[in-house]
């Protein structure tokens, strides 16, 4: 059977063009915010100075220091983290077919926090350090990342197992996430109870989502992995689309549903674990960004994923700027502002429900 000599409806071409435009607008907004973020902070820099500095032609040593050593790493990590968390949330929502899935609501963030706390207490990775910005630091971030990651993956596997069981409704899964989250929070509290002052400070410090702690070395480690995983998600967007009409329909067109679900969850967990291991828990970006985007752009992953990536980056950039500027010269943890944005969105979703 062959269906040739068809025509692509003009309306469809227009519709695709409109969505591509939306992506372009989001990207432009992000680029603008990126520059604004570099200009603003405890010391204001003129836009021209910033642009010159970026082009390796700094007008002053001060501008060079501020842009390259303080603001650029923080801005880059905001973009990477926001993009990564939002994409992970979007993929989790899709492969679990659950609008409430996100690293935060499924307890994966809490598991990472527990893993990090465990590494601080068992492997002594928390130390006093006398850097200009922090009194306490994680001395061996790789071990912390590895432990945080292991616990995140463990939690993700439990979620996959439960979602694989027939009749696992969104309620069941979110309740499982809440239960797992509480379990790991309790575990973290237990560790904190037995920790000494330095360890306790390292743990608490770690839990605050804070983008300022990442430097270029961290970025060199995070960026390749995040970019690779984002690429993986984008390549798989057709598979996620194919699962939109149900698992059996997806198998009928040749999609290996189990593998797509497992690889998606593992990649999303790796991304989440990596990001929050370096910058701490940043709540709600993974849930809110994909949802805001879904309402505007729909469930087509060819557009949903890039738009979520851009929206996540945008939200975290904005939250970071607010956190840096609202109480100058104090810098507040960025997770406070993502929660201030995310919680109302979450409540709105509960009240409004899924449109379908």
């Amino acid at each position: 059977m062959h269906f040739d000599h068809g025509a692509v409806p003009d309306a469809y071409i227009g519709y695709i063009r409109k969505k591509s435009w939306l992506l372009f607008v989001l990207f432009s907004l992000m680029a603008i915010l990126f520059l604004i973020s570099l200009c603003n902070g405890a010391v204001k820099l003129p836009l021209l100075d910033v642009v010159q500095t970026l082009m390796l032609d700094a007008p002053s040593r001060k501008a060079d220091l501020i842009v390259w050593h303080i603001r650029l790493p923080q801005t880059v990590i905001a973009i990477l983290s926001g993009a990564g968390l939002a994409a992970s949330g979007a993929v989790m929502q899709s492969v679990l077919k659950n609008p409430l899935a996100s690293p935060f609501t499924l307890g994966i963030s809490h598991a990472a926090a527990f893993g990090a706390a465990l590494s601080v207490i068992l492997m002594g990775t928390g130390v006093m350090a006398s850097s200009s910005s922090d009194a306490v630091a994680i001395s061996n971030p790789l071990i912390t990342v590895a432990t945080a990651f292991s616990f995140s993956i463990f939690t993700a596997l439990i979620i996959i197992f439960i979602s694989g069981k027939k009749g696992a409704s969104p309620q069941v899964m979110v309740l499982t996430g809440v239960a797992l989250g509480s379990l790991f929070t309790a575990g973290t509290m237990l560790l904190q109870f037995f920790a000494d002052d330095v360890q306790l400070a390292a743990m608490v410090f770690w839990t605050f989502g804070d983008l300022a702690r990442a430097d270029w070395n961290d970025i060199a480690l995070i960026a390749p992995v995040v970019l690779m995983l984002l690429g993986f998600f984008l390549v798989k967007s057709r598979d996620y689309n194919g699962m939109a009409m149900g698992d059996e329909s997806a198998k009928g067109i040749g999609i290996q549903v189990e593998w797509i679900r497992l690889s998606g969850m593992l990649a999303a967990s790796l991304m989440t674990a990596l990001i929050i291991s370096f910058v701490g828990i940043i709540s709600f970006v993974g849930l809110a960004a994909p949802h805001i985007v879904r309402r505007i752009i729909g469930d087509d992953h060819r557009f949903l994923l890039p738009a979520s990536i851009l929206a996540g980056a945008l939200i975290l950039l904005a939250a970071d700027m607010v956190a840096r500027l609202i109480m100058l010269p104090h810098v507040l943890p960025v997770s406070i502002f993502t929660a201030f944005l995310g919680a109302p969105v979450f409540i709105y979703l509960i009240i409004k429900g899924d449109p379908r």
Partner: protein
Amino acid sequence: MILTVNQIDFKYKSVKILEDINFSIPRGEITVILGPNGVGKTTLLKCLNKILTPAAGRIHVKDKPLKAMDIRQIAKEISYVAQYNEAGKITVFDAVLMGRYPHIRFTAGKDDLKKVGSVLTHLNLSHMALKNLYELSGGELQQVAIARALVQETDILLLDEPTSSLDLKNQTRILSLVRHIVRDHNLAVIMTMHDLNSALRYADQYICLKNNTVFGAGKIEEIGSDLLTKVYGLPVEIIRHKGYPLVVPVEDAFKAA
């Protein structure tokens, strides 16, 4: 024969669902799988494209063993329309485009888009190309699922209860559409069905399942009330009204039990 099934057994957690199933499917005909609830009709259908894997037996598609084919190769030969389809915020055009999945390496080309356009025109669905799936009625969603299966350009089409959630008009519309497609493109359609009147009216062949195995099979004109009475455990008669066959229960199911 485009599809042959030899001695298929299927077990679910050591409970036998299907036992020693044998049949073959010709091109250009609609074969309907009949039988009471829970006899394994849908299970059998899902074994045919490896959504489920039989415990024993052989299935051949165009003389190639199904076992040796991966799920993508199978999707180039056999398309499948599930009984229930989820409806997300994705357009009809994009949902139908997913039927090209087994043929696309990286991204959909112009040809793929044209084929979708052609199928939508063929099924009179062009006007809803940009509607989201969740805005459709049950009947429209079923037609989209069939359109998606058609754009897959396979020679075998599996339909699981294609009319179960449809009203009378949509039932006849979908089934006559399927019959036209089968005739026009010389396809093989295998479908499960509860509605005996529709089965007798639109199918060419039947396979009756009872007690986990094939109880009877043959040309649909040859199906008798004796066989249906035995398979469904209820006395029935087949009468004709204006040339159309009708299955009428002649005793209360409550009494018969």
